[in-house]
C-alpha cells in the first residue's frame, strides 16, 4: 500500500465533494488509469465525478500525464476536467 496526495479541480472537485485527500492505494493500482477505476469503487460521488474516464485529465507532481503512466514514486496526483482558461 502506497500513500498518495490527491487533488481535484473544477467539476471533478465539486462532484467528489472535496478538493484534496490522502489515500492508501492497493498494490493493484499501477497506472493513472488504474487509479481512476479504483476511485470509482469508493462511492457514488467518485462514480459520478469520474463517469467519463476518457475526459478526465491527470497530472503527476504538477505535470500532465497519460492514463497509462505508472504512479510509482509520485507524491501528488491531480484529477481535473479539460482546461478552459485563457
Amino acid at each position, binding site marked *: 500500500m502506497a500513500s498518495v496526495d490527491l487533488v481535484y*479541480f473544477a467539476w471533478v472537485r465539486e462532484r467528489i465533494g472535496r478538493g484534496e485527500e490522502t489515500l492508501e492505494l492497493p498494490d493493484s493500482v499501477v497506472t493513472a488509469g488504474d487509479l481512476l477505476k479504483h476511485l470509482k469503487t469508493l462511492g457514488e460521488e467518485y462514480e459520478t465525478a469520474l463517469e467519463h474516464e476518457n475526459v478526465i485529465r491527470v497530472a503527476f507532481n504538477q505535470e500532465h500525464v497519460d492514463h497509462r503512466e505508472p504512479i510509482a514514486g509520485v507524491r501528488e496526483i491531480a484529477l481535473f476536467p479539460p*482546461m478552459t*482558461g485563457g
Partner: protein
Amino acid sequence: MADSPVRVRVQRDDFDLAAEVAAISAGRRDIGAVVTFSGLCRDEGGTLGALELEHYPGMAQAELTRICQEAIARFSLQAATAIHRYGKIAPGENIVLVITASSHRQAAFDGANFIMDFLKTAAPFWKKEHGADGSAGGWVSAKDADDSARDRWTKS
C-alpha cells in the same frame, strides 16, 4: 541578457499592459517587434454576470513557464510574458495577457499565437459562468476548436 526572458505570473489582480511591455523592452535596442494578446471577459450579449476562474496553484505557474520557454526556443523570441488571473472576473475585465518580443514581426505574432493556443488547452485553469440574473452558472466546456488550434502547431 540581464533579465530572464520568461515572465510568468498567476494573480488575482488585474495587470498593467504598458508596464509589462516596458519590462520586456525598456533599455533594449535589439527588439524589432512586440506583440501583446489580452483576453477579456465578454458579457455574452448581457447574459453573463461574471466568470469565476479556478486554477491549480503551482502547476499553473509551471505550465505557463514551460509553454513560454517552448515558444522562445521554437520561434527564437527574445522574451515572453504570460499573466493569468484567477477569482471572479466581471465582463469587460482582463483575464489573460501574453507578450512576445522578437527581432522579426512574424516570429512575435506566431509566438504569441502559439502560447495562447497551448495556454488554453494545457494550463490548469477552469472557468465557471455566473448569470447576469444571479443564477449559479455551469462550468465552461472545453472546445474542440481549441484542440484543433493547438494541433496545427504539430502538423508538417
